[in-house]
């Protein structure tokens, strides 16, 4: 324990005293959140999003004219309640159910819903039964916040841990530690905990600072949010440790890290929703820990999801963390 605490303390000091890196770690996500909040503070979307329950084929039979209308995007949903919740939170402008009695749902306070209702009447007459739901709008800033914070955590965890260990190996510091009784597991665990503490601290500071200015929509429990983000960070750090376990070249490590971060950045739902994309894209996205972290944090913040509701994501993140950390410790080489 003494060895672990000593290495943990030393790494924390190294990070906190590197002022330029610390300021950048704090400022970058803050500026990104504020910048995007400002940029997208006007109209959220350029097209209308309509959820469909009952199948797109059935939809094309029962609402041919509507489906041929331009600037409408139809997204198929299997579960009615999921789709209704999205209408509640203004994530869908309208929901159409084509199985059984044809119905549509709109949010009473949504201007887009109002416009779409007029379009439906104009194209399909009165054959759909009207249903209205109430619910607070989820602003785009509320939607992308988990993505921005998740991405910042991803970069900090992967590059912050991966590059640091590769640098230690390259400059001979790991070789010096190898000559002491310190074990590989103690060393790696200290690196994991150090980065975890620091990234969580930074994320909490950034979230709190932005929240003072933007007042984020938070429907769920902060404790569940903390659990999910902590597990997500642990999982990403474990991947960083695994990549750095044997690599002695910063260029090589950088290449691998970029190969991992770009698909995660694009396909984990950080910038845009994958709803409506090909099934294989959505399946591929499930491989990335960032997908699970962002999906769970969005569910907690926007929909008030409870721990039991996000448990599938929690299990995936916990399992990935254990596997990557164990693999990293197994293949780790000091030199």
């Amino acid at each position: 324990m003494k060895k672990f605490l000593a290495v943990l303390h030393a790494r924390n000091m190294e990070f906190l005293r590197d002022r330029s890196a610390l300021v950048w770690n704090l400022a970058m996500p803050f500026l990104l959140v504020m910048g995007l909040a400002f940029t997208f503070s006007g109209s959220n979307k350029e097209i209308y999003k309509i959820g469909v329950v009952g199948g797109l084929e059935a939809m094309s039979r029962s609402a041919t004219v509507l489906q041929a209308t331009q600037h409408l995007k139809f997204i198929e949903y299997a579960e009615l309640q999921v789709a209704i919740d999205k209408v509640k939170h203004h994530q869908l402008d309208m929901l159409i159910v084509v199985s059984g009695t044809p119905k549509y749902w709109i949010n009473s306070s949504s201007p887009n819903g109002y416009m779409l209702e007029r379009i439906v009447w104009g194209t399909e007459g009165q054959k759909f039964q009207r249903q209205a739901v109430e619910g607070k709008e989820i602003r785009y800033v509320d939607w992308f916040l988990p993505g921005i914070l998740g991405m910042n955590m991803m970069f900090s965890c992967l590059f912050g841990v991966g590059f640091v260990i590769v640098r230690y190996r390259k400059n001979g510091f790991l070789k010096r530690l190898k000559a002491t009784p310190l074990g590989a597991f103690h060393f790696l665990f200290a690196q994991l905990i150090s980065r975890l503490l620091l990234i969580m601290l930074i994320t909490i500071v950034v979230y709190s600072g932005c929240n003072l200015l933007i007042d984020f929509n938070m429907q769920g429990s902060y404790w569940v949010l903390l659990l999910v983000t902590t597990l997500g960070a642990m999982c990403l750090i474990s991947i960083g440790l695994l990549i750095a376990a044997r690599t002695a070249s910063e260029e090589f490590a950088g290449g691998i890290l970029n190969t991992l971060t770009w698909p995660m950045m694009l396909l984990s739902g950080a910038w845009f929703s994958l709803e409506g994309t090909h099934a294989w894209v959505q399946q591929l996205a499930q491989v990335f820990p960032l997908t699970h972290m962002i999906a769970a944090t969005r569910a907690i913040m926007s929909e008030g999801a409870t721990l039991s509701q996000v448990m599938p994501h929690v299990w995936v993140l916990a399992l990935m963390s254990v596997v990557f950390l164990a693999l990293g410790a197994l293949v780790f080489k000091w030199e």
Partner: protein
Amino acid sequence: MSPIISVHNLVKHYPGVVAVDGISLSIPQGICFGLLGPNGAGKTTTIEILEGIQLPTGGTVLYKGEVLDARYREEVGIQFQHTALQEFLTVRETMELFESLYHHTLPIPELIELCSLGDILNRDTRKLSGGQRQRLLLALALINDPELIFLDEPTTGLDPQARRNFWDLVKLVKSRNKTIVLTTHYMEEAYALCDEIAIMDKGRIVSQGTPAQLLSQHFGDVVLQIPRIDSVSKLPELGLSVVDAGDMVEISTSRLHHTLQQLIENGVNLDRLRIRAWTLEDLFINVTGKQKP
């Protein structure tokens, strides 16, 4: 005296290279043992195997008569040739970090005094001079109060004054009955510090003994240097041990009076004669056939 560390028939192969080719040696407790050799001779590989950092391809390493185990890391001190420290830590914090990695340690104040670190305790380790940095690295090597200490080229890059200060420190450490295994590029350093040396070449030990023994084995007591133009025509007739040294010729002799008389009687001009003792550098070149590493 029983050896503190010994190696038997040590072999280390890398792909296509035999770095260490069956060396055996025993190092008694309490001495400073020097491992010398040209670049690529295998001395760093040998010392890293002794340190337990590398595993040999063949042969055995015994510490106090037993094979190396986890206890070994607790009991030896190592100062590597190239090493970096955790950044943004002070000298004191770095010592505290390494102190925490061992069960048994020397008190930090004692180490601070021994290695003269009092003035730089709160200095960032990135801002230390070469000499200060080497003193800190030595303190880290001593932090677990080891009986056996490895110093791999500890004074490379230091100015002459800092080097001599470091020698004083090593002598102080040795006076505490510590065993030191030293590699160095400086023959005068080996001569000043080492009780016994081994010279390696091409993965083998080509010469081993105390510096005095080796010098007397390989050379006469002194060397006479005479400009070539003053001597060249006469020397071949005198039956002396003569070596070419550029503009000079060097005559090795253990009978100085007799040799001088012989040169005078044969009319050799001794106005520009210089007399010097043989050094380890001469020995190094003699046994390896190379300039010093």
